[in-house]
């Protein structure tokens, strides 16, 4: 048993290593090389220059506030929504689930632009409305600030947190809460003293993934932070590579190495905090049934609160997108704007052969990439959770390597790697790059689900003569369905809107949606951009619905 587990661990280390180590290795070489590519004369000059920059301290202070704030916001919101959706009798659950996932499906650039249209201090729609309603002289909100950045990034990372916390919440053993109530604790006390501590691995995983994601994020720092003059690491890196024409990605990679070190440290901390995984087991051989808590009188007010939250935070920006796709240019809503509405941007986009080809490619990458990615994630998560060895710790760190690197640089690492292989400029390079980079999206929901499954289940199966593979297929996987669905949704919708790798690796014939969207953004064509963005949301929504339906069919009862 131990021997086969060890073999599996090393096989996975080889596979995951091949997917994630090489691009980072190339960047490491680039950071120590003179010149503009990965192979040059050795130098530490890039490190010296990057780390003696006097603005670095301010940048790091802003970055810390930004990543902690946005991660906290996304985790708390996700916890709130996941609790209401999975554990209570709040109405319209399915709709709420879709709404909490929508920010993941929107290109981040577009989501940030929508918020700028709503909350810019000059003529942001919400500001205009509030100024009029409250007779204010100045706009009450300014999106171009660190708080604006935290709000938008927090919302963008909400789906990640939700998809990690919700499955854990869904497979919660009712007995734990019932015992608490029997001992006289109320719903709130039970939630604080029993539910939250048991969910610690999932909450921490969501928080840490949020930290890593916001650290690598570029859209929000660029669209909101730059006009607000709030520099964070991503914009600092952008400045480093954008000033001049001979872009030195090696120097940016030198800074990226610190981000990587910080991320790996976070993962080690996470492993230490969840080391005694038995504490968090909720699905044992005694059977489990997640309890549904009646909200009673609080049902309607809570429903209204969530509905309002969803409306303001998510529906409104999407409505702005729809509106932008219909008006001929960026205009504040008015009778004239409505009279000028047409489907021109839509027909332009849908009649454009490159947009159609990118749609096809993105759909292929979303479905095939997510399926392969989830398959790999099941095995990796199993080893990470159930095989507590140094090798499994190594595997976990490896799975985060490309993911932790700032997006603005990792694409170049992949280009430096793939150009040495026959895969360069093919769709397979994109597929492998996507899986290698976003593996944590598959692994995290699956590991939080694995943590909750007691090893007695597995042992019973093995005692009865089933092989490890049969045990995985017949016992573990059906119990993992919520995690598998979450992982698949996260990966598929990420792959459909992936930009950082695609912008470097995509070539004629392998165009993808996000690159096409970026082209429109670079040309300032917001109407077409919004139309294609909505198509992208449509595709992702269909994938989410399909995955949820399939998941419901195969869920363990």
């Amino acid at each position, binding site marked *: 048993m131990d021997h086969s587990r060890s073999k599996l661990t090393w096989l996975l280390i080889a596979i995951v290593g091949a997917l994630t180590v090489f691009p980072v290795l190339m960047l490491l070489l680039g950071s120590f090389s003179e010149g*503009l*590519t990965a192979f040059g004369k050795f130098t530490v000059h890039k490190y010296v220059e990057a780390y003696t920059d006097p603005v670095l301290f301010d940048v790091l202070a802003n970055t810390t506030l930004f990543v902690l704030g946005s991660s906290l916001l996304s985790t708390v919101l996700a916890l709130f929504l996941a609790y209401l959706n999975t554990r209570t009798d709040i109405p319209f659950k399915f709709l709420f689930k879709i709404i909490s996932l929508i920010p993941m499906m929107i290109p981040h650039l577009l989501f940030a632009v929508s918020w700028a249209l709503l909350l810019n201090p000059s003529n942001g729609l919400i500001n205009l409305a509030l100024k009029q309603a409250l007779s204010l002289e100045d706009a009450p909100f300014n999106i*171009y600030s660190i708080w604006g950045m935290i709000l938008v990034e927090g919302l963008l990372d909400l789906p990640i947190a939700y998809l990690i916390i919700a499955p854990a919440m869904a497979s919660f053993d009712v007995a734990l809460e019932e015992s608490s109530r029997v001992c006289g604790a109320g719903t709130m006390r039970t939630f604080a003293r029993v539910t939250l501590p048991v969910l610690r691995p999932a909450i921490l995983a969501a928080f840490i993934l949020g930290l890593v994601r916001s650290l690598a994020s570029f859209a929000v720092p660029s669209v909101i932070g730059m006009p607000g003059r709030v520099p964070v690491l991503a914009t600092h890196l*952008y400045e480093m590579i954008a000033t001049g*024409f001979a872009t030195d990605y090696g120097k940016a990679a030198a800074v990226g190495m610190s981000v990587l070190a910080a991320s790996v440290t976070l993962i080690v901390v996470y492993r230490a905090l969840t080391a005694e995984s038995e504490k968090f087991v909720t699905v044992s051989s005694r059977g489990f049934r997640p309890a549904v808590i009646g909200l009673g009188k609080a049902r309607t007010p809570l429903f209204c609160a969530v509905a309002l939250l969803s409306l303001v935070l998510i529906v409104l920006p999407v409505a702005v997108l729809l509106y932008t796709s219909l008006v001929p240019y960026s205009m504040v809503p008015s009778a004239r704007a409505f009279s000028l509405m047409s489907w021109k941007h839509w027909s332009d986009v849908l009649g454009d052969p490159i947009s159609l080809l990118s749609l096809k490619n993105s759909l292929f990458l979303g479905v095939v990439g997510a399926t392969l990615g989830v398959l790999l994630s099941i095995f990796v998560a199993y080893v990470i959770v159930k095989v507590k060895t140094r090798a499994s710790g190594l595997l976990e760190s490896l799975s985060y390597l490309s993911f932790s690197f700032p997006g603005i640089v990792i694409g170049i690492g992949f280009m430096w790697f793939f150009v040495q292989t026959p895969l360069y400029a093919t769709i397979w390079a994109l597929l492998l790059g996507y899986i290698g980079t976003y593996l944590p999206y598959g692994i995290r929901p699956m590991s939080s689900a694995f943590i909750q499954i007691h090893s007695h289940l597995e042992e019973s199966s093995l005692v009865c003569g089933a092989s490890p593979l049969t045990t995985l297929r017949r016992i573990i996987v059906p119990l993992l369905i919520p995690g598998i669905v979450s992982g698949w949704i996260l990966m598929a919708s990420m792959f459909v809107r992936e930009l950082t790798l695609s912008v470097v690796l995509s070539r004629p014939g392998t165009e993808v949606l996000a690159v096409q969207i970026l082209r429109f953004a670079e040309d300032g*064509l917001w109407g077409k951009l919004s139309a294609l963005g909505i198509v992208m949301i449509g595709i992702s929504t269909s994938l989410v619905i399909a995955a949820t339906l399939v998941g419901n069919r195969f869920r363990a009862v």
Partner: protein
Amino acid sequence: MKKLLLALFVLCAAVQAQAQDKALLERAKAEGKASFYANITAVEPIIKAFTEDTGVKAEYTRISTSKFVATAITEFEAGKLMADVVQAPLPVLELLKEKGVLASYRSPAAAGYPDWASKDDKIQLFGIEYVGLIYNKEKVKPGDVPTRYEDLTLPKWKNQIVMANPANHATTISWLIGLKENVFKSEADWRKFLQGLAANKPMFVSSFGPTPAPVESGEKLIAISMPKYIVTKAPAPLDWARLSQPLMGTPRAIAVTSKAPHPAAARAFVDYWLSKKSMDMLAKDVGEYVLAPGVFPPIDGISKAKVIAIRELSDEEIQKWGAEFKKIFDVK
């Protein structure tokens, strides 16, 4: 007699050139396709027309300026540069030339271009990425429209300007230096202008692409941007300020690569690109300022504007001035 001989010579040369063109095209057809790496936008109509007119397929890969050198050099050094033709701002092609990525080619199609547009036997300039002041014509009264760059320092423009980040946007940095060298009489006047502009607290965005949207929507009134958006964003209420001073921009350049997988198709493509037909398309459909004689974008008054190419700045200069502008404009 002399005239007759000259006419005969010209005729012979024309016949020979035509024969050469035909031979080049035949070889290009045999090669099958030309691959084009560019940072210029919306050039698909030219790509399509090239394929229709010559029977040679063209493939267009758009690469942003910040990734251009890294991509081209990485592919070149790995022996996998797929581009037959590269197009980018002049400083980018100069860097590629230094690395040996470019081949010599003087296109006969550039015959009518200004002399300074033929940089050397490798790089051909065909346009200027011209920068001007574009404003919302529904919100700015005609009397308020700037007539000189110095007008941007007037208090009425406080919090009303949008521009690309002067600390890192290479074209904006070059443009500001262009003002110093071509417009202002002294460095003191130029610095006074910079300080006045900075005092008006312009909103910074990452590049020119996001500059027109805030002006169209009325979030801001005026942008340091490219007048070509008047064409590409029509019917947005945009117009350009007819200044008494020249407009300036970085030259746009094109070249054939030294290890082009399809060398004849590459040359045929460059010839086609520099032809009046293509330059017309570029000017009319995309609003580009091109160097083909007599071709102008359909922007009222632009044919009378003085548009000059900014001196080529080295990366060291751009970085040095970027750091200086960072202080002046208080870019955090």
